[in-house]
């Protein structure tokens, strides 16, 4: 008696398996493709910038017409506008997201706001910059300043913060809200005690990702406050905190453009070092966002 062989793949199964292997291979290639450019870019930048990468690069101010010295002044300028713009955009964006997802009925107002948010998100950053000139520099009378640039960046980041907030809130199951309403909680009590704590990871991630966007963009700050060069005193508090809220400022992204195209005699390594600092700033903020998300997620909720 011969053993019955019943687990033999027929033509259909073999075809199915072949397609499956192909899908897996292409998917793997597509997913890993991303790693190469990232490693290449950062590696190249680091190698080129290596001679200039010292601690004094971070803590000293630019000197000798920006051909020497450090990057403290532009670094502080970038941090200033990022912090101020998010201080404006985050509360407004989160409250708007809460209203849209938790309070607004489906109607023309909600659709109008959603339409505005979508269109605002699609506007090129240079247009935001021009709008900032008209609205904040001129009409509001802020002049070219940290304040005007921050407001412009806030307008630019607002739609994404609203969208990510709305999505984070929508991912909290409806049953949780109903359970709260059923024991007499008001909408706001439900939002505060149940919905927000569970959406916090998503909301914070959305906000933090906008930090890297605000830090990297040049166009919106170009006309609204970032300048070629600001003379910074060598000593005193002003050497560390160079700008008031109404002062024009230097920013890393614009500074990089300036020293690599507008000023002659800047060493290559200083130019690359500026890029490295900007990338490091953005990456470290992203790392914080990942850590925050991980912390909130690890409290596994449902």
């Amino acid at each position, binding site marked *: 008696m011969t053993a019955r062989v019943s687990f033999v793949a027929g033509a259909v199964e073999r075809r199915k398996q072949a397609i499956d292997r192909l899908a897996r291979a292409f998917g793997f290639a597509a997913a890993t493709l991303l790693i190469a450019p990232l490693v290449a870019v950062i590696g190249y930048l680091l190698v080129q910038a290596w001679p200039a990468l010292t601690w004094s690069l971070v803590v000293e101010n630019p000197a000798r017409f920006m051909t020497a010295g450090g990057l403290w002044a532009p670094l502080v300028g970038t941090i200033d506008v990022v912090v101020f713009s998010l201080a404006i955009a985050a509360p407004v964006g989160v409250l708007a997201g809460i209203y849209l997802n938790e309070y607004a009925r489906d109607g023309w107002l909600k659709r109008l706001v959603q339409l505005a948010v979508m269109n605002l998100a699609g506007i090129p950053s240079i247009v935001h910059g021009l709008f900032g000139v008209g609205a904040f520099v001129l009409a509001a009378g802020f002049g070219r300043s940290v304040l005007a640039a921050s407001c412009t960046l806030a307008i630019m980041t607002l739609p994404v913060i609203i969208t990510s907030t709305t999505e984070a809130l929508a991912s909290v199951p409806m049953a949780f809200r109903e359970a709260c309403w059923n024991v007499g909680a008001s909408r706001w*009590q439900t939002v505060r005690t149940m919905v927000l704590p569970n959406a916090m990871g998503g909301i914070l991630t959305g906000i933090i990702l906008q930090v890297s966007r605000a830090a990297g963009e040049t166009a919106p700050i170009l006309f609204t406050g970032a300048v070629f060069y600001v003379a910074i005193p060598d000593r005193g508090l002003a050497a560390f905190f160079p700008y008031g809220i109404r002062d024009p400022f230097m920013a890393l992204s614009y500074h990089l453009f300036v020293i690599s195209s507008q000023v002659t005699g800047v060493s290559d390594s200083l130019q690359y070092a500026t890029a490295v600092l900007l990338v490091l700033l953005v990456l470290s903020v992203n790392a914080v966002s990942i850590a925050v998300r991980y912390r909130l997620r690890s409290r596994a909720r449902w």
Partner: protein
Amino acid sequence: MPAGDTHVVFDHVSVDYGGKPALVDVSVAIPRHRIFAIIGPARSGKTTLLKCINRTIEFVPRARVRGTVTIDGEDVFAARDAGALRRRIGMVFPLPVGLPLSVYDNVAYAPRIAGVRNRAELDDVVERCLRQAVLWDEVKDRLDLLGTRLSGGQQQRLTIARALSHQPEILCLNRFSIAIDPLTTMKIEDVLLDLKSRLTIVVVASQVQQARRLADRVMFLNAGRVVEAGDTEAMFSEHPQSPLTYEYVRGHFG
């Protein structure tokens, strides 16, 4: 107020969702400190009816209610503070909802929302409600465990404990036993029979037989209309008022 007198009244209540009718001209009286069961096929308006009692129907987009619902003569939809109204009613869903909080906080949620801060008082509420929901012995040593980590049956009893935590005068249960095993169901049914000396209980029955076991009065809903409401015995007798009721309770239809 004496048991058996009218507690909740639906007076010509119709509900539609964006024009699609869910309840049509429902009039019924729910007696105090009795178990009132609602039976009927899917989409017959059972859940909608419960949502009218605690007014959570107003959280459903595009829902429209006509007619009046009264609790002890007070118009539910005219109540200024819906929160105060809902604190008089406990509501249990078909699927268990363990809130992503500790077991303790799940039960203490409602008292806290109502402003109770005293720890001893909260401790009392938590123990009393978990005991009433036949869950205390299983969780008393791990009250800080996430409610969502409990098994489905335990979460359903947690939901019942939460529904009792604000000391409601009316307890509504919407097909509470579909996610729990028969033994636990029996235990909870015993609890309900015990609770009805103090509470008015409205239960959407998971099966017709559950209504027969538990209820003093039964209402049969079909396509949003009341087919018949009557004493349990009459509803399950050989001669209910409607032949449709006769067929439904014997499983010939629905």
